[in-house]
């Protein structure tokens, strides 16, 4: 006959196991608490050090800024600065393109008589002898052809008897 495992006794609480488990839990709690406290203390120390470092960095930056401001205030342009600027502007002036545009344009009745390059101003004044105004305007139009904006302009034109003379100016800066 098949045995029956009928049992009505209440399940026994494993007191010893619970006590051991409780002790283990308590030890773990103490250990974790101690570790957490140490971590918190360490974190606080690191945070304080970081704040101190940030304060020191801000102080140094302010000091550097103050020095830079003081140096900028006391700075005077050196004696060669103006000449150097002129030299730089002269070096930067596109002399070759100006001359090349004059060389590549030729109109009958227009003759270049003088070229005055002014690198400091970034421009060139060209004196022309022309036969009639129509040829002069055609010459100007050919000079400005291909430029995004008219670079050459008529500054002055005069006629005294049979001699006609004009001045045109180019702006390159």
């Amino acid at each position: 006959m098949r045995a029956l495992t009928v049992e009505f006794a209440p399940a026994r609480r494993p007191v010893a196991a619970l006590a051991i488990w409780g002790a283990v839990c308590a030890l773990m709690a103490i250990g974790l608490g101690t570790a957490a406290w140490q971590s918190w203390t360490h974190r606080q120390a690191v945070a304080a050090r970081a704040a101190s470092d940030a304060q020191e960095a801000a102080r140094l930056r302010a000091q550097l800024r103050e020095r830079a401001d003081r140096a900028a205030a006391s700075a005077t342009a050196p004696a060669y600065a103006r000449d150097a600027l002129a030299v730089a502007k002269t070096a930067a002036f596109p002399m070759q393109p100006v001359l090349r545009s004059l060389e590549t344009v030729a109109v009958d009745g227009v003759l270049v008589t003088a070229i005055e390059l002014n690198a400091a101003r970034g421009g060139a004044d060209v004196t022309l002898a022309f036969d009639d105004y129509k040829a002069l305007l055609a010459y100007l139009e050919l000079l400005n052809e291909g430029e995004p904006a008219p670079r050459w302009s008529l500054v002055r034109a005069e006629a005294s008897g049979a001699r006609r003379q004009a001045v045109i100016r180019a702006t390159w800066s």
Partner: protein
Amino acid sequence: MWWVGKRGTGSSRDSRDSRGLRGLRGLRGGHAASRTAIAYASDGAVRLALGGVTQVASVVDGREAALAALAAGLRELPRGTRLRIAVGGAVCRPFLLPEIDGAAGDAEWPAIAAALVEDATGLPPGSPVWLDGGQTSPRLAVAIDAAWLRGIEALGGRALDSIRPWWALAIDASTPSPFSAGLHGLAVADSEMLVLLLADGERYRVAQTYPLEGEAPQAVLSRALVTHDWPDEAVRLIEFDAGALPGQPVSDPLPFSKTVHRASDPSSSKERAA
């Protein structure tokens, strides 16, 4: 109610009582912290044994008297003694659950069993139920009287190791049985009840409790077998030893039982025929 044992006062039982006291005093003086006492409790009898010797043997009337007798016996036990209690068929009864269409899940069977306790066993409603998982059709359940269970738990406290029906111990003691195949059965007659368990192989077919009411267990068993139309050749009868006295050794392997009779034993058959 009369008492037999260390609390008895009858002159004819004095010598027996003193034996029980001597045994108990001897145990109290020794290191018995790991010992286990075995008790039987039911509405009509209380037994308590320790170290293989019966310490208390009382005839009682009702639950309160039984629990009081058991409490008196437990007070005399050495400190630290574990306690295993077997209860009679009047307290803890088996029954079979009918097949119910639609009862699908295992979660429904406890509720079904609880609802059937009163009708199937006569125990009060609300009695705790243990469900057997060994067979699904029909399912076997065991109910225990809730008031008895509370009383035993209160008495045993933390020393309580086990509360089992005495007839379940009888099943354990009778296995392996030569009748474990085919139709066979076990009838356990305790102090008030006859618990009849009939099985076909490993499957229980009948689990029923009959009140003895002073009648011979064999007569009750014979009537029950006729009722169930069950062959009595393979039914084993185990009886409670109602006449046990303090100081007597506890029978082995089933405490507080008489010598086991087997239906197939020629001598037993003769006795039964007589």
